[in-house]
């Protein structure tokens, strides 16, 4: 077995890694791990005042500091029934646009573009793209400048407070921002063309669900009180848990999320896919020019979407400033409430960010924070798996590492959200034995034999199950018994489920491979009716804990004879399970 891994993902913000384990011709495992240590922010906020919590939570991530601040403020103000003035809302939007510009321009020009033009860093890239690197730096600096003007500092500014701002920027400061934004327009338009015309590889391409904030007033926007999905569903912010369903994985300190047991994606690409039609002005024109159906299936287009959003931000700044200039500054709104529950959602540069708090007796008693990278983790793993398996099949094993790196980086993971990057591992010989032992250690598994006994080696799974039954092993079933006993309907606990079957991995006959069942389903490597049956009847949650133990058949001709190598494989598996 071989493991391809990028152990320290470079040019991402934070520390994490992605690894793919390859057993012969099959990718058997993909893991996105975050080495960033546990910080327990949700716990250390408990017992503090809402104001203190608003000081602390932006420290989760420097690059999304404004989004964290904004989400926390919205949540606290919801909980404490505070209404802020229009000028406060406008200035918060402005600081948020500043962060979007800073984060997106850092990501597309500094962290991503070097990959596409073949340099190790943006500094090295400067030899060939001097102008782009310089102006992009200025654009990033401008984003920083906006954040500093509105929030007090580049990073972790404390000027935005519950109920308003400590101080509003002066008229001169706002007018300077307005005119500077207009000066940048020619370069921004070039940026959009550059990133929309990059040659994004077509692997991986696969459908997914996109989620983002549903902005008010039917416009493109970055905040809202509802979550919208690419499926057309709308979820109220208070019901966010029906989207996120967070769970702990053992290989990362960031939790993972699934919607209806399926991975989903958030971020600039999700926003453009869900809301792009609502873009106006130059951004609207550029959207119409460049958007195509591949954007809906290929995570690498996130970079194009980010470029488009930079344009959106630059077009909105002058309008926001004009409105702000007509309004007078308002004092910080006061409040008397000491109890309440509130959720605040905003779009961080890398996607939907959710803060939810409960306040009792003036102190925060419960905190739930759901970051974009935690939501994207499952889709990052899925797209990396798809890319790795496809490249392996095409004989491009040497490309897997770089491609996984590209996919992870496209998601712009904000790894401090609790996340360095890709690794390709070769499985050791007979890797399935170690895996089987690890599964058995969690809980006693259930076994199901699948296959057609009239097609020679295809009967291997059934044969194996029957032998196990003979040995008196508990919880062994045949495919044919499942429907009758309604076993899977009642399968509610989280015991592992292992299916036995002959699977054509194009390996040497008799080779045993153990891999997560959803990889088999995603790839539809085998056509037994069991698979549609299982994916319909079982919830995906259980599929996470379901595996396929596949034996490479020699022949599946009609007949009942099982070939020698397959028979030997059956005996080996029997021995392992007995142990």
């Amino acid at each position, binding site marked *: 077995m071989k493991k391809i891994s990028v152990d320290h993902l470079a040019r991402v913000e*934070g520390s994490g890694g992605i690894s793919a384990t390859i057993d012969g011709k099959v990718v058997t495992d993909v893991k996105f791990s975050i080495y960033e240590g546990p*910080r327990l922010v949700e716990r*250390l906020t408990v017992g503090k005042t809402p104001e203190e919590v608003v000081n602390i939570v932006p420290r989760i991530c420097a690059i999304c500091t404004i989004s964290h601040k904004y989400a926390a403020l919205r949540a606290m103000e919801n909980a404490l029934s505070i209404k802020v003035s229009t000028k406060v809302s406008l200035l918060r939007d402005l600081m948020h646009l500043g962060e979007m510009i800073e984060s997106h321009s850092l990501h597309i020009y500094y962290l991503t573009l070097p990959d596409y033009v073949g340099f190790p860093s943006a*500094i090295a890239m400067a030899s060939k793209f001097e102008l782009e690197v310089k102006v992009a730096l200025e654009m990033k*600096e401008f984003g920083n400048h906006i954040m500093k003007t509105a929030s007090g500092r580049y990073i972790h500014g*404390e000027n935005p407070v519950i109920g308003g701002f400590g101080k509003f920027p002066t008229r001169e400061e706002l007018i300077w921002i307005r005119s500077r934004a207009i000066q940048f327009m020619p370069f921004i338009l070039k940026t959009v063309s550059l990133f929309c015309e990059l040659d994004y590889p077509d692997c991986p391409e696969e459908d997914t669900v996109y989620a983002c904030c549903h902005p008010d007033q039917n416009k493109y926007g970055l905040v809202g009180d509802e979550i919208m999905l690419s499926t057309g569903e709308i979820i109220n912010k208070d019901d966010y848990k029906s989207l996120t369903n967070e769970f702990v994985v053992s290989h990362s300190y960031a939790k993972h999320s699934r919607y209806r047991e399926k991975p989903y994606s958030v971020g600039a690409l999700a926003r453009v896919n869900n809301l792009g039609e609502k873009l106006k002005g130059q951004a609207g024109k550029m959207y119409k020019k460049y958007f195509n159906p591949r954007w809906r299936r290929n995570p690498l287009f996130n970079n194009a979407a980010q470029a488009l959003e930079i344009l959106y931000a630059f077009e909105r700044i002058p309008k926001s400033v004009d409105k702000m200039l007509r309004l007078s500054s308002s004092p910080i709104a006061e409040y008397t409430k000491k109890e309440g529950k509130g959720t605040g959602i905003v779009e961080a540069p890398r996607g939907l960010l959710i803060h939810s708090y409960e306040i009792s007796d003036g102190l925060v008693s419960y905190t739930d924070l759901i970051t974009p990278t935690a939501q994207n983790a499952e889709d990052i793993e899925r797209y990396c798996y798809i890319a790795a398996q496809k490249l392996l099949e095409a004989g491009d094993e040497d490309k897997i590492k770089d491609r996984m790196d590209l996919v992870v980086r496209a998601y712009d993971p904000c790894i401090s959200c609790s996340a360095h990057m890709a690794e390709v591992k070769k499985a050791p010989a007979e890797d399935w034995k170690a895996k089987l032992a690890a599964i058995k250690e969690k809980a006693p598994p259930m076994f199901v034999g699948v296959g057609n006994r009239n097609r020679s080696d295809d009967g291997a799974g059934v044969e194996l199950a029957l032998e196990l039954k003979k040995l008196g092993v508990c919880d062994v079933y045949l495919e044919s018994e499942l429907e009758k006993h309604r076993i899977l309907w009642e399968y509610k606990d989280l015991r592992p489920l292992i299916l036995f079957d002959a699977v054509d991995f194009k390996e040497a006959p008799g080779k045993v491979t153990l891999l997560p069942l959803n990889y088999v389903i995603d790839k539809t490597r085998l056509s037994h009716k069991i698979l549609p049956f299982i994916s319909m009847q079982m919830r995906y949650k259980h599929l996470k804990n379901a595996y396929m133990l596949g034996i490479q058949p020699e022949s599946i001709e009609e007949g009942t004879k099982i070939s020698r190598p397959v028979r030997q494989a059956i005996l080996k598996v029997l021995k392992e399970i007995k142990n």
Partner: protein
Amino acid sequence: MEKKIKDKLKIGIYELTGCAGDALLILDCEKELVDIFKAADIQSFLMAKSDNIDGELDVAFVEGSVSTEREKKELLDIRKRAKTVVAIGICACFGGIQAAFLDKKDWEKNFKKVYGDNKMTHTKPLQSKPIDAYIKVDYYLPGCPIDKEQFLSTFNRILRGNPPELYRFPVCVECKWNENDCLLNKDILCLGPVTRAGCGSICINHNLPCVGCWGPVENANLTSEFQLLREKGFDSDFIKKKMANFSGTGIADFLGELKGEKR
């Protein structure tokens, strides 16, 4: 003129657990960034480049607290390779917000509340601690995040073989330079008198009290600040909590003293 690569100091910039704000702030030195890369041989800077080398270093800048076994190993290795180690940011200096659970048992209880009984397979979690809990640190560059001017001056001085010259006084001094009205005089809980300067008294400039995010200044008169705030009618637990929000281990001795007095 640009120096030859072999004459340049070898520098590494490393991130442990934290918000990556200090590394990001170095990237935020937009105008000076190219010069930084020209003046020194940046061997490792994960956030900025992918061709990183783990070799001998003249100076290592380390951000973040040690929060996993893997980070502890990485840090010990950095110390072995580097002649000089500079802790950057409050997490590396004092543990930061995640070092709030100073008591081991308290930390374990809260860890369990977040992650349940799940066994972590990738790296063992550790109670967050500043880097000097494990290695000798040569210089401390505080901040949450660090300040651009202080970083550039520290970087420059170290490049020329000089020790950094940092502010050794509290935020109040900068606040006076900025001619702000004292918020304590208005009975607002402000941590300016005990917090290390360098931020430019930014919060008070915005009519907001200092939250203490740079941690305690050396020889901070915490007792006097505590008494003052008590006299102004603030609850003692509230004051302690406020002082401890960012300071991690930097406030441990003082909290210990207070406990001792109670007994």
